[in-house]
């Protein structure tokens, strides 16, 4: 299992439950992936820990595999190579080791997208995930006054977390004419007095060594900026929450058939219903399989873990039941208008998979 986030942890638990021996590798020093900085309570069903905070979910999942004779956990270890013969190169403590597993579940997650505007490289322009890491894991405020860019769930949630940490959020700007995230998150920060400016984007960030301010402007119906609508904010931090893109380097190395599906965040691997890619024995799960959220990542991990172990001949009495339940939960999670984009992306991916003979 490559990646100990929500998908990788659930894949490990599932494969272990089937009796498979699992090595779980992660580049960070603790399991949990990005859950370790999610202080908000999750929605969804009880199977995916609804009502619990991400930080607690990370701990609960990790506890289920710690000290398990079937599971070896390698932390501070980065998979840097996927070789033709199926061997993985793993860097740990400046040394390279190799491992040749019979099955691989790749759950490397995603990286944050950039946005093009003058001075977007100045210190103080930080990814939303970085801001969360700094304040929620290490207890350091990213700045005194923040302009949030993006009103998807991440932008809204991190805005609220910034306020909880005592940081002033001057505004949230969103290029789309409507808020992308859940209304409940949007209302929470609006009630606290933070304006959410839809149809707005960053014109430029100002400063010579670090961020000293930012100018925003309005966008028309075709996303063209409207001159004369500029507004200046004195901020020391500009937080980018403008989407994620799958961290697919290893899949390219492995020679997986890839497709560019914007609705899923960029390049994703073609895969079947069991999340197996065009390379037999290599499975994907979580944001790497298509950008969604932690709840769906956990279910995808379960499906991939069960399927990987099953394909090796491992079995468990409840295996088919668990698989069916997981598929049903995933479908339920993806209902509703806010998930339309993901649904159409997956439909496209499955169609491409059928054309390539990967999906039956």
């Amino acid at each position, binding site marked *: 299992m490559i990646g100990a986030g929500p998908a990788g942890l659930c894949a490990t638990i599932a494969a272990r439950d089937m009796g498979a021996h699992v090595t779980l590798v992660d580049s960070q020093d603790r399991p949990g992936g990005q859950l370790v900085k999610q202080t908000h309570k999750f929605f969804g069903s009880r199977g995916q820990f609804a009502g619990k905070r991400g930080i607690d979910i990370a701990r609960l999942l990790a506890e289920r595999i710690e000290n398990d004779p079937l599971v070896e956990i390698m932390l501070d270890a980065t998979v840097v190579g996927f070789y033709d013969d199926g061997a993985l190169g793993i860097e740990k403590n400046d040394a390279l080791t190799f491992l040749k597993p019979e099955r691989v579940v790749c759950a490397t997650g995603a990286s944050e997208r950039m946005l093009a505007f003058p001075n977007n490289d*100045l210190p103080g322009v930080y990814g939303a995930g970085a801001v969360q890491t700094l304040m929620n894991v290490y207890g*350091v405020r990213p700045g005194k006054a923040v302009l949030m860019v993006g009103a998807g769930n991440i932008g809204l949630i991190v805005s609220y977390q910034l306020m909880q940490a005592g940081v002033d959020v001057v505004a949230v700007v969103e290029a789309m004419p409507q808020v992308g995230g859940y209304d409940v998150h949007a209302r929470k920060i609006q009630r606290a007095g933070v304006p959410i400016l839809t149809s707005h984007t960053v014109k430029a960030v100002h400063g010579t060594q670090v961020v000293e301010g930012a100018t925003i402007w309005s966008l028309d119906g075709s996303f063209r900026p409207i001159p004369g609508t500029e507004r200046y904010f004195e901020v020391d931090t500009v937080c980018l929450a403008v989407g994620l893109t799958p961290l697919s380097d290893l899949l390219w190395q492995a020679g997986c058939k890839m497709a560019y599906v914007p609705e899923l965040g960029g390049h994703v691997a073609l895969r079947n219903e069991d999340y197996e890619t065009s390379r037999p024995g290599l499975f994907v799960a979580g944001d790497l399989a298509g950008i969604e959220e932690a709840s769906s990542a956990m279910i995808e991990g379960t499906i991939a873990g069960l399927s990987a172990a099953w394909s090796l001949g491992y079995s468990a009495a409840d295996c088919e039941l668990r698989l069916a339940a997981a598929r049903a939960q995933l479908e339920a999670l993806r209902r509703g208008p806010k998930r339309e984009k993901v649904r159409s992306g997956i439909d496209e991916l499955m169609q491409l998979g059928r054309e390539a003979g990967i999906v039956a």
Partner: protein
Amino acid sequence: MGGFIAGYFLLGRVSASVMTDSRITSHPILEFKEGRRVRFTFDGRELEGYEGEPVAAALHACGVRVLGESPKLRRPRGFFCAIGNCSSCLMTVDGRPNVRVCREKLREGMRVTTQRGKGVLLAND
């Protein structure tokens, strides 16, 4: 030049060995278990942080946001992803260049310096 400006900026904002108010001391949900306080140097200036936290976090808490400069245009660089993916935070640590300080854990007596250019691997041999 970039270093001069960075140094000037820092001196204006921070006095040595003082942790600024950017540390979160009370939070509605989280409790932060701080490690042992340790001393380290940043470009020769003595600073303090908590043992085991990332060097970038310790520097940020001391008001240091400029961690380096881009090799070609010498633009100031800070951290961006904070999880070891983006390489925006490369610094020289105890003489070793290209260390991702968002992942490197702070130790007592660490020498952290701003990296110029792409770094020299075998300078002292």
